[in-house]
């Protein structure tokens, strides 16, 4: 599934990117602190299909990802 489908409050592991190389999203997201293999937590979602706020607990990074970005990030659910 993609990050945009992960429910608020859930923990997921980043698997990779949809269409890697198609845009510079993959490297942009990586430079801002989310890498394949990272465990991330979905903290909240903005109204009107706005961004999702995620946290990388291991590094303390907190990022808002717009829905388009969230749809490009493939994740797998982790047990709560």
């Amino acid at each position, binding site marked *: 599934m993609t990050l945009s489908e992960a429910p608020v409050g859930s923990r997921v592991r980043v698997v990779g990117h949809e269409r890697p*190389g198609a845009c*510079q999203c993959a490297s942009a997201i990586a430079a801002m602190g989310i890498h394949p293999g990272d465990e991330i937590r979905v903290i*909240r979602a*903005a*109204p009107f299909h*706005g961004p999702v706020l995620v946290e990388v607990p291991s590094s*303390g990074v907190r990022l*808002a990802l717009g829905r388009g*970005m969230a749809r490009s990030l493939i994740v797998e659910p982790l047990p709560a």
Partner: protein
Amino acid sequence: MRNDRSDRLGVRSVALVGQPNCGKSTLFNALAGFKANTGNFPGTSIRYTRSLVSVGGQSLEVVDLPGTYSLTPRDAAEEVTRRFLEQGRADAVIAVLDASVLSRSLELLLEVLEMGLPTVVALNMMDEAARKGVEVDPAALEALLGVPVVPTVATRGKGVVAVILKALGQTMRPGSGRPPTYDRDVEESLGRLAAEVPPGLAESVGRTPRSLAIRLLEGDFWEVQRLGGHPESAGLLEAAARERRLLAEMHGWPEDTVFGSHRHAMAVDLFEKVATVRPRRRRSRRERLDDWIMHPVLGLLLAVGVFAGLFGVSFYFGNFLSEVVAGPFDRIVEAAVPGADRGLSASLIRGFLQGVSGGVGIVLPYLLPLLLILSLLEDVGYLPRAAFLVDGLLHRVGLHGKSVIPLILGYGCNVPGIYGTRILESHRDRVLTALLVPLTACSARTVVILALVGATMGPWWALGVYGINILVTALAARGMSALAPGQVTGLLMDIPPYRLPPLGAVAKKVWFRVREFLVQAWPILVAASMVLGLLEWMGVEQGVNRVLAPVTTGLLGLPEAVGVTLFFGILRKELALVMTFQALGTQHPAEVMTPVQLLTFTLFLTFYVPCVSTLAAQVREVGPRWTTVGVLLSTGIALAVAAATRLVGLWVA
């Protein structure tokens, strides 16, 4: 290469490099006095600022570079930083790390070290890291990397002098540390690729063969494009593609992130060696605050409340201050030059006094509270949260993600808003946003709204004008994005923790902006007032007014006298306000204009041609052609909105 960097200026130069919102500009200001704009908002510095400082009896140039997440730039602001470093314009680099997100900060540090520049590390935000339960050992980091590491708390000036002294030492005895080595297979790839670099090529782009090989393995778009121009580098680019494929296959990662992932792994490894993390059991109070502030419903209501509050406080405080200051000034003007005296000297003196009083009696009272509250919102970290909440709404009008940042900045002042468009990746978004920013009611226009509508018709009407401004800006965005459909580039934004800025820093920042008004705008205001006095005396003013009459009185139903003020409003928006009072011959416009006229005129002023500073910024960012389009667009919108207001007024009456 290295010699010409310092000889050019005769002074050594130290550059501050760091990720957005890591406290570079705060550190810079602590060194140089208040010169760079700061805010708890990633991307506050879009251009670099430099300053000469004196350390230990030596002059040193300190350069504050725009924040960048990595040295593989993705937008124009990041490109500034990378080019500055490549051109060898810094004798030493101070890498500012945010200790509270240390492992990410370390990735940038590794890139800086790979460039082989003499480096000192400022380990900033140690207090915030401690709050997150992260303890960092600077000595361990220093031992692992071989470069000086100084813990700092830039907001309190701690460690600032130590850092700059170490940097000065680095400019004299350059040592670039030891960047850790990568896995064996990565190092082998790098070695093979570095051997393929034609002699002299790396040096010609300010790099070592190894650091060039690293850029190529990363698939650095700029580097590949630049080398594409060199005929002798075709073989090198082919070899790079081959090595990238090889690494990707070996590690099972996609090509474009395989190298970055290795650097990331290295940074994580370093982080684990130098930091200890105590897991927290409870969420901190500041985190729980976000449950309210970023709540989908409450948060949006709160955002409306915050901006209405900003408006209301500025209004009431401004009104109060304005009456206290402007009343006595009116009496002075009347005593000095009786209204009946129409001679040349009387006209000039009256213009002078009215300009002086307009600045301190009308503009400053509203501007001061507005700047104070905006600064607080900026420093506390509220703005990125507001951006998070409204991003979804902006999507509905066809604006994407990051556009919200320049637009929010535009409500403070259009000029940084225009420069802020540099953080947008696509040309289409940059142009679109640069055309929209001048429609936003900046603080100067807000002053006009408060003084012309608020003070005469009440705060709710002023708020209404503000609402119309937001609505029209949204409609314009919708229309323009429908004309230029483009690819969606999504939002990707750091949400910084809340920070309580030291009051001294807030005061300095407000003073910085007030001084800008007093030194730059006020003299223009006074001079323009005198020019208007002169024009009145010569009778030219009436000619101008008559030429504009078909629009001002014919189309919009305004007093003919306001015509000439529109020209002054292009210099600065506050000027239109002060000039209007002067042209109407009263500080109480409600005596000579009806409420509908006041609304019509104010709406026209908020939308028509932006001020010259904004136009200059627009020309720089998107060129004269788009600037012209913008001027026509905003004038068209101004005419349409003002004419519509008049019609509604006629209909209601």
